[in-house]
Structures are given as C-alpha cells and as structure tokens.
C-alpha cells in the first residue's frame, strides 16, 4: 500500500497498481457522477455544494473553486470548456504526478462533474511534457471511462454529453499559468493573455472556460459523495479538506503527504522523517519556489492552511514544502531559484524578460565573490520594478523569493559581499547546487 498518511482521502486505498477503472469503481468511484445524473441534480446545487466545501484551487492561487465555476455563463450557446492544469512544474511540486499515476479516474470524474455543473461540452487535461508515460496512461483511462459510458454522448442515458482529451505540454513552465496554457492548447507559444477578459468569458478558442488544477478536480467526487460539510470539516473554515504536500529538500523521507488543512507544520515535517540526522532546520519555502521563504522558527509556529501561512508572511501556493537545513547557503539557493525564473520567463513583458536575467546576474556575482556594496539595494530595486508590472504572475514569482531571502537572510548576502566568502560553507555544507560559471550560456557568462 502507498502511504500518504492517516488523513488521506484522495490517495486512500492506493497500492501503486490499482489505477484502472474497475479498481476505482471498487473504491466507490463514479458513484457521485451516477447519482447526480440519476437524480437529475440541478447544476446550481453542485456548485453550491462545492462552495460549501471551501475547496480552494490547489494549483497555487487558492481561489475558491465553487465561486470560479459560478462565473461560467449559464445561457451560452455552443462550446464551453473545462480545462485541467496538470502542467506541474513549480519547483518542489510533484503531487499531480502521483495523482495521475495512481488515481487518474478521480481526476476524470472530477472533470465530468465540473463539466455537468457548468454546462461544459468538453474537457482538456494539459499534462506536463516530462511525464510522458502518464500522458499515455491518462489516455488509456479516458478510453476506459468512454467505454463504460462515463464519457461521450448522453452519459449513462442522461441528456448530458461531455468529452475529455489529453493535451501534451513539452517543457515550458509558463504554461502552468492558465491563459498561457490556453494559448498552448491553441497550438501557439504559451504566452499569457491580458486579463480581463477572464477565461470564464473568453477562454479556449474564445469560449467560456474554467481552468482548475489536477488535485482540485480530484477532490470533487469525494465532496459530492460525502457532502460539502464533511469536506469542510476535515480542514478549517475557509480552508476545507485535505491537501497533498510535496515535502522536498533536507528531510529524511522526501515525498507526498496528504494531511488536513490546518495541520501544524511540525507534524508534516515529522511525517517526512524530520530534518536529516543531526541537522537543524534553517528555512522553509512553504508553497513552491515562487513563494516567500520563511525562517525555521516562524514555520515551526505555523499551521499548514492558506490563511495561516498567509498570516506568517508567505503563501501555501501549490503545497510544495522545500526544506533547508543549517548547511544551506541562502545565496546559493537564491541563485538557483533566480536562474529558474530567468530561464522560464516567456519574454513577453520587458520588466520580466530583462529583470529576471538582471536578478540572476547580480545574485550570481554575489555568490561567486564579486558582489558590490550597492548590490542589495539594486536587487530590491529590480524586484520592485518587476513585481506587479507584468501581464502574469511569473514576474512576481521571480521577485518574491529575492525580497524574502534578503528580508530574512540579509546577513548572508552581506557576508558574501564584504568577505568574498560564504558564511555557512564548510566541509559539512552543500555548496554544490546552483550553477558554476562554466555552465552559463556564453552571452550570460559575459554579462555575469
């Protein structure tokens, strides 16, 4: 049996091989859909139930799912789309991979129910290119569902018709942004669109569209079977249900753990085996690499839900918990994060395209002992001039780590600049990650 922890509902009863339709039905799968269609439950009642559950978007923004669905126009002739965002590429996040691998039908059933609630005609699941085997497996699962009558025309003899298709990503972080993803499905560069109009009014092919994360869809069948109240009560007010957390970095057992929202961080850390033997916790990025880093003492006093983490000064984001112990050089850590955003900026907005490279080059020179006295002020200034000045949130995602690393670990950056050496480096430390100058593209190496 796969063990996601005692609170698991989305990942309960999985053994690694029982992903097929028959196994899913044995676990009660597609019962919620059957009941909805048999009882002809009005779509508004489905949306009301999801609202009651306080399910919030599991991809990063944490937007209330029921509310998002209610933005879909009811009286709209023609196609409407329900899109699943499985383009999981936020550093630290690896939960959707497990969901698709071990429980793909929960995602399909969630998409069908969402399609029913919003009157959508078809769904696309955009699957991260790096997990090709799961793209093929998802297509198999779709085929199983179609053959059993859960997809296609007049599903289970009802008047509701809905299709689901898989669409492959192929290596672009920006497609995790919902409008970039829609552009990508349309066969273009995945460059985000201006909002408004929001996808609910102008989405895929210009039609009303809702984009939800894989885990969000996977929670929907459980909510419809057990009721919105039951889901809400697993978590906290405004933070319903359980959440999959990907715990990575310096822990004894990196992995995915499903816990009730509101679980203390210390408990989650314990589930992951704690920090590596004999090492003290130093810092944690609680919600994926785009979110602000927090020092150990703040994290240890925080609970894992959207509102608590926001109060502590960061965001729950995608639920990717990156753990760093005392051997971690924060300059090196930020250097690698900044490289990621530079590499993944789509190039559309000048502040992000130019600013992410600038941030990386400055952090890189500080890391390599060539920092200048004015560099920290420069990093602040460049970050401030990216954040809030771009079409999508990638700009903020590049700026937030810089601001937070400087806020909480400024002394390490100052030490690098003043002494041209690292405060934490020693025989015991992990100086390796980050990039050596030799790996820089030639243009970057000259610039840095």
């Amino acid at each position: 049996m796969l063990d996601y922890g005692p609170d698991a509902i989305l990942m309960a009863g999985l053994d690694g091989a029982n992903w097929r339709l028959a196994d899913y039905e044995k676990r009660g799968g597609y019962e919620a859909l059957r009941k909805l269609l048999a009882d002809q439950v009005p779509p508004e009642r489905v949306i009301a139930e999801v609202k009651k559950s306080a399910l919030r978007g599991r991809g990063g923004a944490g937007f209330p799912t029921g509310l998002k669905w209610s933005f879909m126009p009811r009286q709209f002739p023609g196609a409407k789309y329900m899109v699943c965002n499985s383009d999981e590429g936020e550093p630290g996040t690896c939960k959707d991979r497990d969901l698709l691998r071990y429980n793909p039908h929960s995602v399909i059933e969630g998409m069908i129910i969402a399609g029913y609630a919003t009157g959508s005609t078809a769904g696309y699941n955009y699957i991260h290119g790096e997990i090709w085997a799961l793209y093929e497996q998802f297509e198999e699962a779709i085929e199983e569902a179609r053959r059993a009558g859960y997809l296609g025309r007049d599903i289970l003899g009802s008047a509701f018709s809905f299709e689901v298709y898989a669409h492959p990503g192929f290596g672009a972080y920006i497609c995790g942004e919902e409008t970039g993803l829609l552009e990508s499905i349309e066969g273009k560069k995945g460059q985000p669109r201006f909002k408004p109009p929001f996808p609910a009014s102008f989405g895929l092919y210009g039609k009303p569209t809702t984009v939800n994360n894989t885990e969000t869809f996977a929670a929907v069948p459980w909510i419809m079977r057990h009721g919105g109240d039951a889901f809400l009560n697993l978590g906290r007010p405004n933070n319903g249900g359980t959440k999959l957390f990907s715990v990575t970095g310096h822990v004894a057992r990196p992995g995915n753990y499903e816990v009730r929202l509101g679980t203390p961080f210390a408990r989650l850390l314990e589930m992951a085996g704690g920090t590596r033997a004999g090492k003290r916790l130093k810092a944690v990025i609680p919600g994926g690499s785009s979110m602000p880093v927090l020092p150990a003492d703040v994290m240890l006093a925080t609970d894992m839900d959207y509102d608590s983490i926001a109060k502590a000064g960061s965001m729950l984001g995608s639920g990717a918990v990156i753990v760093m112990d005392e051997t971690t050089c924060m300059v090196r850590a930020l250097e690698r994060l900044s490289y990621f955003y530079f590499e993944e900026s789509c190039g559309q907005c000048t502040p992000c395209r130019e600013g992410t490279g600038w941030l990386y080059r400055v952090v890189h020179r500080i890391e390599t002992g060539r920092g200048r006295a004015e560099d920290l002020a420069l990093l602040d200034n460049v970050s401030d001039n990216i954040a809030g000045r771009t079409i999508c949130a990638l700009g903020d995602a590049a700026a937030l780590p810089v601001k937070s690393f400087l806020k909480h670990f400024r002394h390490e950056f100052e030490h690098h600049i003043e002494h041209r050496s690292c405060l934490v480096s020693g025989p015991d430390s992990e100086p390796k990650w980050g990039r050596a100058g030799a790996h820089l593209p030639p243009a970057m190496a000259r610039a840095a």
Partner: protein
Amino acid sequence: MLSPESLRRIDREIAKYPAEHKQSAVMAALIVAQDEKGWLATETMDFVAQYLGMAPVAVYEVASFYNMYNLEPAGQYKLTVCTCLPCGLQGSLDAADHLKARLGVDFGETTADGRFTLKEGECMGACAMAPVVLVNNKKMHDYMSNAKLDALLDELRKR
C-alpha cells in the same frame, strides 16, 4: 516526409480538437515528428506546417518556445538531469557530476561516439523523487543513485 505510422498518430491528435482548430495538434505533431526523426529540421517543421494548414513560422515559434524540442541533432540518447533547487538539495548535482564523469561531457555536449547528449533540465515535477533523469524526453527515471545511473548507462549502451 513522415511515416504512415507517424501520420496516423498525428491524425489521432487532430481528432481531439474542433475541426477548425487543427493547429491545436501542432505540439503533439512535433513530438511525433521528433520521435521519428530525432530532431526537428526546417523541412520537417515545414511538412508539419503544411499538414496542419499553418504558416511555417507559426510552427517554428512553437518548436523554439518549448524547450524539449531538439532544434539540432542530438545524441542517440538525450539525458536530461533536473538541477532545480529541491532536486539539488537532494543530490541531483552529484548525480549530474557522476554522469559528466562517466560520459566525459559537460551539460549541453554530446559524446564523441554520438551516443549521449547531456542536458540540464528545469523542474520536471518529480522533485521528491530526485535525482531524476529523463531519457529522450519520454522515459523518466527517478531516485537515481550512482549505481542506478551506471546500470542505466550500461543498459542504453547495450541497446
């Protein structure tokens, strides 16, 4: 230009989208083309453009935007190692160093025998299972200790 089998696969992708939006299949079509040819030469992309009724430049834009497309010939096996922060904290840089030493190449280089190209990757969404190595974009290998890396290289060499 592409084999009947490849065209059959592309047709299957086209069928997923509304008839007037064949362009939606371009990403999948380029994946299929790359599987067959190993990389995307201009004439391959031109063929895909013609097949989908797109302007060639619109296909080049897509091929150059998504970083798993090979715009130049690569080794028989492209090995991509994720070195992002979470993977790096869990030893992926040691894994990368091991591969570099075993293959005698740096990131972005191909071995003299044309067998292996080594690439540095960004987040693959498998962070807790680091180190992660992707072979030819399609096959993910996780929890790659040095012993498992050696076994993988041996297996690929034998093929």
